[in-house]
């Protein structure tokens, strides 16, 4: 029963991870079109979009954290495997379990701290300089991405414990 619930949760997490690509693609197209319009207005009519710099920053938060979510769901992050490739399989498995667990904890810590940071920004009414947009929703996006990424890495950890996946 527990393993069924576990595999159901991991399925949902991986679905979200894979779907995050839609958010990344949509925001990227929006940012690209905005920059094209901005550069055209600036160069041709000497009348740039004053908010493009700020909107780009917001767009980047969505693009970057949806990418982290996607890459966490899909594959392993950049590491140095030249030395470990020569270790016995059992040692590699133990190291992999330990590092998946630590990676999950780090991302969950980022998520937890981002929630606290977002709440502080909300209480302080922190807004952006040009559009007066509240900053806290974008910090919640970081928290959401980090927590889901952390949970995904936790699933990797459980899979490593059960001897599944690449060592």
């Amino acid at each position, binding site marked *: 029963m527990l393993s069924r619930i576990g595999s159901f949760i991991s399925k949902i997490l991986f679905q979200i991870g894979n779907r995050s690509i839609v958010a990344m693609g949509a925001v990227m197209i929006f940012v690209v079109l905005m920059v094209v319009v901005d550069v055209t207005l600036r160069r041709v009519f000497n009348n740039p979009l004053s908010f493009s710099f700020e909107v780009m*920053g917001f767009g980047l938060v969505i693009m*970057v954290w949806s990418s982290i979510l996607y890459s966490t769901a899909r594959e392993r992050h950049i590491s140095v495997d030249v*030395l470990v490739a020569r270790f016995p399989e059992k040692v590699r498995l133990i190291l992999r379990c330990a590092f998946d667990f630590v990676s999950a904890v780090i991302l969950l810590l980022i998520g937890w701290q981002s929630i606290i940071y977002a709440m502080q920004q909300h209480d302080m009414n922190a807004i952006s300089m040009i559009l007066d947009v509240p900053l806290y929703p974008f910090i919640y996006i970081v928290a959401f991405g980090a927590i889901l990424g952390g949970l995904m890495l936790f699933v990797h950890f459980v899979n490593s414990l059960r001897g599944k996946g690449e060592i």
Partner: protein
Amino acid sequence: MSLALIGVIGLCMFFVLLFLNMPIGIVMALVGLVGFSLIRGWGAGLSVLSVQAFRTASDFNLGVIPLFIAMGFLAMRFGLSSDLFYVMNKWIGHLRGGLAMAATLACAIFGAICGDAVATAAAVGTIALPEMRKYKYKDILSTGILASAGNLGLLIPPSLAFVIYAIVTEQSIGQLFIAGVFPGILLATLFIITIMIWCKINPSLATPSPPATWGERVKSIRYILGSFLLIVLVLGGIYGGVFTPTEAAAIGVFGALLIGLIFKRLTWPAFAGGIKDSAALTGKLFLLIIGAMIFMRFITVSEIPLHLSEVIAALELSRFTILAITLVIYIILGFVVDIIPIVLITAPVLHPVLVGMGYDPIWISVLIVITILMGGITPPVGIVVFALSGVIKDVSMYTIFKGVLPFLISMIVCLAFLIAFPDIVLFLPELMKPG
């Protein structure tokens, strides 16, 4: 415990975990968090995590990374890399070693669209390697040139290595980009000369393919027009100060989509594939960059760069000796670690020391990047060769290393040229208009 001692213990922990195969971004975040917290308290340490996670992701200058990555992968999915090889093959494929030269030129030109070495080598290699095998090219030549020429993607702008280097050392991304143009062209030329000499000495390395007619050659040029327009638009815009590198990256994505549309290659699978590849690489790189930013906060408060400068000053070595030692350290690091993490970890510490000795910041950045790239293909470990041997499974690492050696010599010659004639690097950035 003194600040320096905490710093040194942190650095030792960092290298132990790194070589035990922990993801590099996580190692940097973990050591940075623990080290910073030991110095400034756990409350401050934990808040660094959230502040850096948000600030790094929303940094306008870093926006250049996902956008240039997307431009490169979309161009690859729309077949621009295969077009480049096709055209080069028509023009020089009939020469002895011509397909290897065509692959080099395709890597050099595609390097001006794609900022990653592995992606450049893969984009050209998937087309070039089967073609070279068809014409009985020896693996030693074909894999050697692919492992080496992929490096052009990280030297010719837009280079992800230069973006990261510029950001962590607070330099102009545009100027560093442009500084890579002549060294990239010089290196590509040296690679081609090496192929010519090698094939002259050992003609059995490559059989010439049948020559194309002049009509076919002229006709083939239309396939290269898209790539050239994209390069002129992006690099010309940065060089002429028309737009910032981040805007250039966005316009590059727009240009790639437009070319896909004009050449009727903008299909849903190609677009979705390009975005997926971009997301996978962007996610990996940003986890690394966020980790590095947390790690750098620790390194700064531990005053390691200050102590390092004092130690170097106490050694009383000439500035040329220090430069030589630094380059040797970078080659050794390049054996086992990817270029981006090396730049993220070392540039904020070593770059100010070298600039403080009077070296030009742009010149030193280019030298360091080439040196790390050399490390990546140097036997016995060379991380790029290690990665390539995982992709080309039927060729031994020994063969690839043997194939890489002549091109490694070309890189040493290139480095010597850049040291002897710094203007090769500095000429274009000095002429550049501010963006």
